[in-house]
C-alpha cells in the first residue's frame, strides 16, 4: 500500500489521505500552501465514497448486461473539478478481498492540481 508521503510526491499532488468506506477521513497529509484542510477532505471523502459505490453498482450492471468485463470492481474514481481533481482508490481493498483477507485496508486518495495532474501515474501509484 502506498505511503501518503510518496503519494504527495506525485505530479500536482496537493494532499494525500485515507478514509473508510463510510467516507470518514482517517489520516491525511496536506502540501504546504495547499488550499485544503481536514474538514474539506472529509467532505471530499464522503462524496467520493458515495460515487465509488454508485460506480460499482453501474459497472456491475453494465458487465452483466453487455458482457464487457474489465470495469468492475472499480479501482479508482476521479472527480474532475474546476481547478483540481481528486482520485480515490479501492485497489488495495479489492486485492485483499480477492485474496480472502479478513480485514480490508482503507481507501486512499490524492488531490491533484489540474494543470500538472498525471492521472495514469496516480492510478499506478494507488494500485501498488
Amino acid at each position, binding site marked *: 500500500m502506498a505511503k501518503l508521503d510518496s503519494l504527495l510526491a506525485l505530479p500536482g499532488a496537493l494532499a494525500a489521505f485515507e478514509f473508510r468506506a463510510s467516507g470518514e477521513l482517517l489520516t491525511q497529509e496536506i502540501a504546504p500552501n495547499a488550499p485544503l484542510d481536514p474538514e474539506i477532505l472529509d467532505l471530499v471523502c464522503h462524496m467520493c465514497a458515495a460515487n465509488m459505490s454508485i460506480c460499482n*453498482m453501474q459497472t*456491475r450492471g453494465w458487465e452483466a*448486461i453487455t458482457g464487457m468485463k474489465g470495469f468492475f470492481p472499480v479501482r479508482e474514481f476521479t472527480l474532475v473539478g474546476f481547478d483540481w481533481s481528486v482520485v480515490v482508490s479501492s485497489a488495495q481493498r479489492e486485492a485483499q478481498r480477492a485474496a480472502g483477507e479478513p480485514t480490508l485496508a482503507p481507501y486512499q486518495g490524492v488531490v491533484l492540481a489540474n494543470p500538472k495532474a498525471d492521472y495514469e501515474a496516480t492510478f499506478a501509484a494507488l494500485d501498488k
Partner: protein
Amino acid sequence: MIKRLLALDGVLAVCRFRDDGSLVESYGGLATEKLAALSDVAHDYRRMVQGQADQVSMFTGMRGWTPPRGWVVRGEALTLCGVGNLVCVLDNGEGSFNDILTEMLEVSHW
C-alpha cells in the same frame, strides 16, 4: 393546502417546490433561507433518486421501481422525507412515520 401536513405529530416543516427547484410555499419552524435551501436539496435528491431508480430498473429488468415516489433520509433525531414536489422535516421522536408518508403521498397529488 400543504399546511395540513403540519398538523400531523412529528412534522416540523414542509416545503413545496417547482420542477426547477424554486420554493413555492413553506411552513414550519425553520428560517426562510433554511427552507429555501431545503427546497434546493430536496429537488436535487429527487432528481438523483430518479436517476438511480432508472438504472436499477434498467439493470434488474424489474418493473415497479420507476417513477420513484419518494425518498427518506433518517438521521439520529430528524428525518427528511421527499414525495413528489414536497419535502418534510420530521422529528423522529414524535408521530407515526407511516401516517405522515401516507398523507404526503395524498397531498403530493394535489
